[in-house]
């Protein structure tokens, strides 16, 4: 276990140390102490390492992550896991607005609640929230899965494309062109896999699926240039 203490080193030095880890590094386990809400912690990682942040983080923790597993033992500020490509990020506490925004891949697990705009414009990332999510979540979501074990706020899935949204609790309101859809066996299988990987003890059968009605002007071929 390597320890990086943010009371002793600058953010840039810490991130450069993590960036220097190669595909076949022997130093696979890292711990970051004294994060104190700093911005951009463990951003841009690209190695199969495990990083544990001992405390709460500020803006953009784990942004652009590839391969790495990042555990946040606290809550995360805005834009956690933004544009994640692969790997796993697990947050013990809550996540602020636009968690997992534009993410292309990997798994983001939020054990508390997520704020507004969770999964906005997601492009393939899987997001599992153990608690609730705020308004305008999955706005213009393109692909990937958003699983919510609690409730969803206003305007869920507004203007979404092919992303799948699974909500166990209530949905305050659906956004434009977002509708409830039938839950087929292949969806239950996707859900079962995600819930297991996210350590959530909910049953797939308890969820409803939401998706795009494909009625907005963007889906009409006559509007193509």
């Amino acid at each position: 276990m390597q320890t990086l203490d943010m009371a002793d080193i600058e953010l840039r030095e810490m991130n450069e140390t993590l960036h220097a880890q190669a595909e076949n590094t022997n130093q696979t386990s890292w711990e970051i102490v004294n994060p104190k809400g700093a911005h951009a912690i463990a951003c841009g990682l690209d190695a199969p390492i495990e990083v544990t942040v001992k405390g709460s983080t500020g803006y953009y923790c784990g942004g652009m992550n590839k391969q790495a597993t990042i555990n946040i033992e606290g809550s995360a500020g805005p834009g956690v896991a933004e544009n994640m490509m692969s790997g796993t990020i697990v947050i013990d506490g809550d996540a602020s607005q636009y968690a997992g925004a534009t993410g292309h891949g990997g798994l983001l697990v939020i054990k508390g609640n997520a704020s507004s705009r969770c999964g906005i414009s997601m492009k393939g990332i899987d997001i599992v929230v153990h608690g609730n999510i705020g308004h305008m979540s999955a706005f213009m979501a393109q692909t990937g899965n958003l699983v919510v074990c609690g409730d969803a706020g206003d305007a869920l899935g507004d203007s979404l494309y092919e992303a799948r949204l699974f909500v166990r609790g209530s949905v305050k309101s659906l956004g434009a062109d977002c509708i409830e859809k039938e839950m087929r066996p292949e969806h239950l299988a996707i859900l079962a896999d995600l819930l297991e990987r996210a350590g959530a003890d909910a049953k797939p059968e308890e969820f409803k699926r939401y998706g795009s009605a494909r009625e907005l002007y963007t889906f009409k071929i006559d509007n193509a240039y």
Partner: protein
Amino acid sequence: MCGIVGLFLKDKTLEPQLGSLLTKMLVTMTDRGPDSAGIAIYSNDSMDKSKIVVQSDTPETDFDGLDSALGQVIGAPVSMKTTSTHAVLSVPHGAIENARAAISQVNPALRIMSRGDTLEIYKEVGLPKDVAARFEIEQMSGSHGIGHTRMATESAVTTMGAHPFNTGDDQCLVHNGSLSNHASLRRKLRREGIHIETENDTEVGAAYLTWQMQNGATLGEALESSLDDLDGFFTFVVGTKDGFGVVRDPIACKPAVMAETDQYVAFGSEYRALVDLPGIEDARVWEPEPATVYFWSHADQPTKEKAA
């Protein structure tokens, strides 16, 4: 961008540390806005007096003999404490309206920062650490306070464009965001006879609350109606004689984090601002909901009013 902080003390033993805790919180928020900074401190040090804080760009000449000149005009004793560009004028309770009117008579160049029984506002162009040092904020004690560091968008970087804005007696407002209907609202409020000094959007927000309250609304009601009448982005923190309130617009893209322990309720634009508070590790930390008015008061039980 802008950074906001607020601290409401439940535990009286922390009161001597209010200025230093608030200064530390605000300095941490410096990179959210380097243009100007301001702090509002509420302290109960003069029960039978009211306070007007004035600012001058030439304090050596303007503050010389200001207390006696003002005292002559209002026919009551006035005491004065000067710090850098600001002077705190203490007048007998009840003489505050007279004194406020008389200040522009005595010296029209003076700018009024705040008025009230317990409120003092200190604000200037510059970084939080410099503004706080200039007014020796760290030495101040009090029951609650709010602070702001500004990244200017809607109007010029001046002392009068700095936050907090004083609304009514003992009331003030800080804002992160931008109001897009401030020009039309300013015209409307001016027609209603409300005095608005600058081209700043937040001052219009503050004047709007004043106007609502002049028409009988409580601060809570004024904040709730602001959700309908103000167009734009805002996270507001308001200070009152007894406590402070928080409201965010329904879109809520301007950040806000709150923490509560047995000793205090704290507000920060980011969690970073709260990390040095005592006992933060065990505090309840959460984000205030959009379009929801929150209040903490020394006078009443804490309330959370859900807006329509």
